[in-house]
């Protein structure tokens, strides 16, 4: 904590020696964070004044906060002055020129994930034609969506082209005062996605960050905002299904979802940031704030997440159930292998009458992995006839890993009906032997058993994503049995 105080002291002192490089020639600002850096980010993005004001307010608020340490996670102090807060997408020529220059191990992983070749090139940061292909693909879809009045673009574009929408909704679900990492994100976020579904429109396709070319090299502080107007419906996929080759980088994203009357938002994530190596070196620190507000009556927000990456995961996709008869759902698979640590779960805040929520969490620990489920179900006094069902299962592979469950339950209305089921089991030696006896190798058997265990969550994912999630699980658990 001392370190953080020192950091804050240094910031308050207005030390500009890590100041920014002018934006004309540079792709990135120098490491460090101060109001100058934030102004530079805002200027580089050519943002209107309200954005800079908001960023600076967030930054000043952040300075008053302490980094939260209540999670069941262990990591060395983060030096916020050593981080580069803005890095523009790499230009052609800076990345590897061809697949031949890419780490063969990375390619091997892509191969096993079954990612198509042009996709692999893009994921590896190879600046080739494939990138331009993707641009045209993205444009095609965007035109089709525009006909329906759907806005789907990068956050930067939204700020330029739809400033009124951004101004109206930004920070309404996750204000910058929400928590330490949300404040940091608000101050420095460089890009992200923006999605607006007008009244009564059912989005005809799954929206995915895959469609957007500038997603490939977006910085580590993205911000996503999805607004579903009355009676609209959208399914959004987020995720990079390829490992990133980053060393202990901080990733602090914010996702805000807003559902108005009878609107439905389904948000699916497959998170596979670089988890660090088998010895626990490197890997992403993933501190993410995701929240959905069911503002309208009979609205519905459903989170599905498959978390296999990152060295540290701190993430609680939540639903605030304000509208009458609104519904929140959370389906999660979290895997920790080697030295990965995850503290993840959800919050279901019941405010409106007849609100319902469902939580299904499947934690899998292998190696030295530590996996915690942390979930809050809060039934406010106003939430007449609220119902919640929670199921939290933990599966242990081996005897050096850990599983922990921290359920919090607050019911202020006597009509609430809340059910909680929790199990912890070790993967059955007899199940593995049964598979062995039918000719399946132990690793295949483990993958099969674990996939079976996760089925309830996977079936919530869109088809192609479910297939990828299954493969990813196999890769993540590789080497988890001796």
């Amino acid at each position: 904590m001392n370190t953080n105080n020192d950091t804050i002291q240094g910031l308050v002192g207005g030390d500009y020696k890590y100041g920014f490089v002018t934006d004309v020639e540079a792709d990135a600002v120098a490491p460090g964070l101060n109001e100058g850096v934030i102004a530079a980010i805002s200027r580089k993005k050519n943002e209107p004044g309200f954005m800079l004001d908001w960023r600076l307010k967030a930054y000043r608020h952040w300075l008053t906060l302490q980094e939260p340490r209540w999670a069941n996670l262990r990591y060395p102090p983060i030096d916020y002055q050593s981080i580069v807060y803005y890095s523009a997408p790499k230009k052609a020529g800076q990345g590897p020129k061809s697949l031949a220059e890419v780490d063969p191990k990375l390619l091997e992983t892509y191969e096993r994930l079954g990612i198509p070749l042009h996709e692999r090139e893009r994921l590896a940061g190879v600046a080739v034609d494939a990138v331009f292909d993707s641009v045209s693909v993205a444009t095609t879809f965007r035109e089709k969506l525009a006909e329906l009045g759907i806005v789907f673009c990068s956050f930067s574009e939204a700020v330029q082209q739809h400033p009124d929408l951004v101004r109206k909704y930004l920070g309404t679900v996750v204000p910058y005062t929400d928590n330490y990492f949300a404040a940091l994100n608000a101050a420095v976020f460089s890009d992200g996605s923006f999605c607006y579904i007008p009244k009564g429109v059912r989005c005809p396709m799954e929206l995915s960050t895959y469609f957007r070319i500038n997603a490939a090299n977006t910085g580590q502080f993205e911000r996503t905002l999805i607004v579903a107007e009355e009676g609209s419906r959208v399914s959004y996929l987020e995720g990079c299904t390829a490992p990133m080759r980053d060393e202990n980088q901080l990733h602090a994203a914010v996702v805000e979802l807003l559902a108005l009357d009878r609107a439905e938002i389904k948000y699916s994530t497959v998170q596979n940031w670089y988890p660090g190596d088998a010895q626990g070196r490197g890997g992403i620190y993933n501190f993410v704030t995701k929240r959905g507000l069911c503002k309208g009556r009979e609205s519905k927000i459903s989170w599905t997440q498959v978390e296999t990456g990152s060295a540290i995961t701190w993430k609680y996709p939540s639903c605030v159930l304000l509208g009458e008869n609104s519904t929140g759902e959370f389906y999660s698979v979290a895997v920790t292998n080697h030295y990965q640590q995850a503290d993840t779960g959800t919050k279901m805040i019941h405010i409106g009458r007849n609100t319902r929520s469902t939580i299904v969490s499947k934690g899998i620990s292998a190696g030295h992995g530590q996996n915690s489920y942390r979930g809050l179900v809060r039934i406010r006094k106003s939430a007449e006839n609220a119902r919640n069902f929670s199921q939290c299962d933990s599966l242990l592979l081996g005897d050096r890993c850990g599983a922990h469950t921290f359920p919090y339950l607050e019911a202020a209305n006597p009509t609430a009906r809340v059910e909680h089921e929790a199990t912890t089991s070790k993967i059955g030696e007899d199940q593995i032997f049964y598979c062995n006896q039918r000719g399946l190798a132990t690793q295949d058997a483990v993958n099969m058993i674990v996939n079976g265990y996760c089925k309830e969550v996977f079936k919530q994912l869109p088809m192609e994503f479910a297939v990828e999630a299954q493969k990813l699980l196999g890769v993540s658990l590789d080497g988890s049995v001796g």
Partner: protein
Amino acid sequence: MTPLLEINQLNATVEGRQILKGLSLTVHAGEVHAIMGPNGSGKSTLASILSGRPGYEVTGGSAALDGEDLLGMKPEDRARKGLFLAFQYPVEIPGVNSTYFLKAALNEVRKARGLPELDALEFLEFIKAKMKVLELDPSLLNRPVNEGFSGGEKKRNEIFQMAILEPRLAILDETDSGLDIDALRIVAEGVNRLRKPDNAQVVITHYQRLLDYIVPDYVHVLHDGRIVKSGGKELAYELERRGYDWLTSEARPVSPELTTA
């Protein structure tokens, strides 16, 4: 001719306790052997050792399948070489679809035999015929492996898997336990249909009842970790009449020659 299975002076312990004490048995292709014996005589241990279940330690002797050392192989390699164990207590695997599981198993075995893998359509075609033999409810195939199956369904499912994997050597561990007479008949008929000149079956059972349906060529009595008597199918009837006491009270090892066909 190389025997299909040759066990020679096998010694094994479980948690430090010696269960098998010099067991020898030779099985040739085309034969059905029954292994009978009182509870605790080592019948299921023998099945576990041959299939490679963890937790059992071989302390002496040898076992070979088609002349190849069995005991040094991983369990999955034994299976791929054609050793099949019909489990006494088939385990449930929640969430894993039965068809998916079986297809994966069959393709592993086919790969090991140098045969091309079957795709989903070919596989469904392949299993359709096998389903009928065991009067198995087709809906079981869409359910997770053994999950929520009745005792009889689990046992039938074991034999169904055997029909699909077409093993060289099938070991049936107390397959009759928990079956009513109709289920027993169906299971036994299934097993009998799978009997071929180039494969063999070792039927482990406590009761003679099963042997009314699966007629063995040889019957062995296991007691205290050894085979103490071997004979033809009539030995089973004698055991039914006289019990095991007359054998176990004067238990003595028999020489390997006696157990060889």
